[in-house]
Structures are given as C-alpha cells and as structure tokens.
C-alpha cells in the first residue's frame, strides 16, 4: 500500500491538478491564475513521466510527450504575459474583473 508505485504517482498528479484547478477558478490576480495553470501543466507532466516509467519503459513515449508539453507551456507563458502587459497598459490593473474588453 505504501510502496511508491504507479498509483501513488498518478494520485499525486491528480492532487496537484485539482489544486491548480481550484486556484484557476478562485484567484483574482491574473498572474496568479497563470501560476496555477503552470501547476496544472506540471501535474500532467508527472503523470506522463510515471506512465513512461511503468508502462513504456523502453520507447519512452511519455517522456517525449512531456517534452512537448514543456514547449507548449513556455510558449503559453510568453504569450499570456504579453497579453497581460498589453491589457495592463490599457486598464492599469491585473484584476480579472477588469479584463472584460471582449464582452459586449
């Protein structure tokens, strides 16, 4: 039960993912929402690498998926923070309630 196997890694990943989801749903500061998104991406990477270790240990498919998840995460943070700066220059705020420019 307490030996660290695939189930334990997957449950750790699920716990981190749900904490990140809770943060995304409840935070007010947009930068904090991006931080919680990073927590969610890291949780998914943990589960991918655990699958790679326990289910495909020779072909390493899960680790290759994790590399591409990291690439997408880096691009997402760069574009996301650029958008935050652009809106901050316009609205002088990082409050999520002021990010309603697209609403009509």
């Amino acid at each position, binding site marked *: 039960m307490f030996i660290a196997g695939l189930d334990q890694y997957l*449950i750790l990943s699920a716990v981190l993912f*749900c*904490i990140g*989801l809770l943060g995304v*749903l409840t935070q007010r500061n947009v930068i904090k929402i991006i931080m*919680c998104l990073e*927590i969610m991406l890291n949780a998914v990477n943990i589960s991918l690498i655990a699958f790679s270790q326990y289910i495909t240990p020779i072909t390493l498919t899960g680790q*290759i998926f994790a590399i591409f998840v990291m690439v997408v995460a880096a*691009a997402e943070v760069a574009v996301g923070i650029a958008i935050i700066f652009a809106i901050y220059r316009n609205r002088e705020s990082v409050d999520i309630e002021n990010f309603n420019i697209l609403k009509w």
Partner: protein
Amino acid sequence: MLDIVFYLLAAIAVASAIAVIVVRDIFRAALCLILLFMTVAGIYLLLHADFLAIVQILVYVGAISILIIVAIMLTRDARQGQPLGNLKWPAAIVSALLLGVIAFGIINTAFTMPDNPPLQETVKPLGKALFGDSGYLLTVEIAAVMLLSAIIGAIAVIREK
C-alpha cells in the same frame, strides 16, 4: 528508502501548491511556485527521467519563474478576495469531485506493466526517438515553428503603438 523520499517530495509539492493559492503576498506565492518546480524535478529523478529533470530546472526554474517574477514586478497588485461574488465553495466542490473521480479511476484500473527494467540513462534514447528516422522529427520541427510564432506574437502584442 526511495519510498520515503517520494512521500517527502510529494508532501512538499502539495504543501507548496496549496501555499501558492493561500499566500496573500504574490511574490511569496511565486517563490512557493519555484519550490514546487524543484520538487517536481526531484520526482522526475525518482522516475529515472534524468534529462527531463534537468530540462525542468532549466525551463521552469530558470525561465518561466523569472518571467512570472518580472511580470509581478511590472504590475501593481490586484485587490485580494474572490472575483464576481463568492465562487470559493462551488470551485472547491468541483475540484474535490474531480479529484474523487480521477482517484476512483486510477485505483480501479488494472494497468498492464511490462517486466522490463527502466532505462538507466535516457538522453541517448530520447535523442534517437526525437531525431531518428522513424521518430518525432516532424513534430520537433512543428514545435520549433510554434515557438518562433509565439515569440513573434508576444512581441507584436506588447509593442508600443
């Protein structure tokens, strides 16, 4: 022995993830996020993913957290509290339900595990898989184009008119 290390790293990871949400000061939340990234790198090492652990340190601790800290320093802090009424409890219930469903699925799934021992070093097999003939070469090139377009898009969005 390794089990103790795993549970220690898991406890630090979950605690720092909760701290990212709970801590009021956003700069301290960013420092907790860096601690989380480093413990995740330790978990990758436990899973025999040495290259991924180094990339995690380089990309997340080295680049993404610096980007987030610069963003914090260039913006004024928002008001604390909940947006648009009190969404805290519905969000907590939804997250807990999702966690329960995922944990139920994990525990009740019989994974078929091969008996092969894990690879001791992963750099050479990963390189062969990514750049070999029958591998993911097209995906690597698409990822390169996507990174370039992301950089150009970020510059175009943030440029002063």
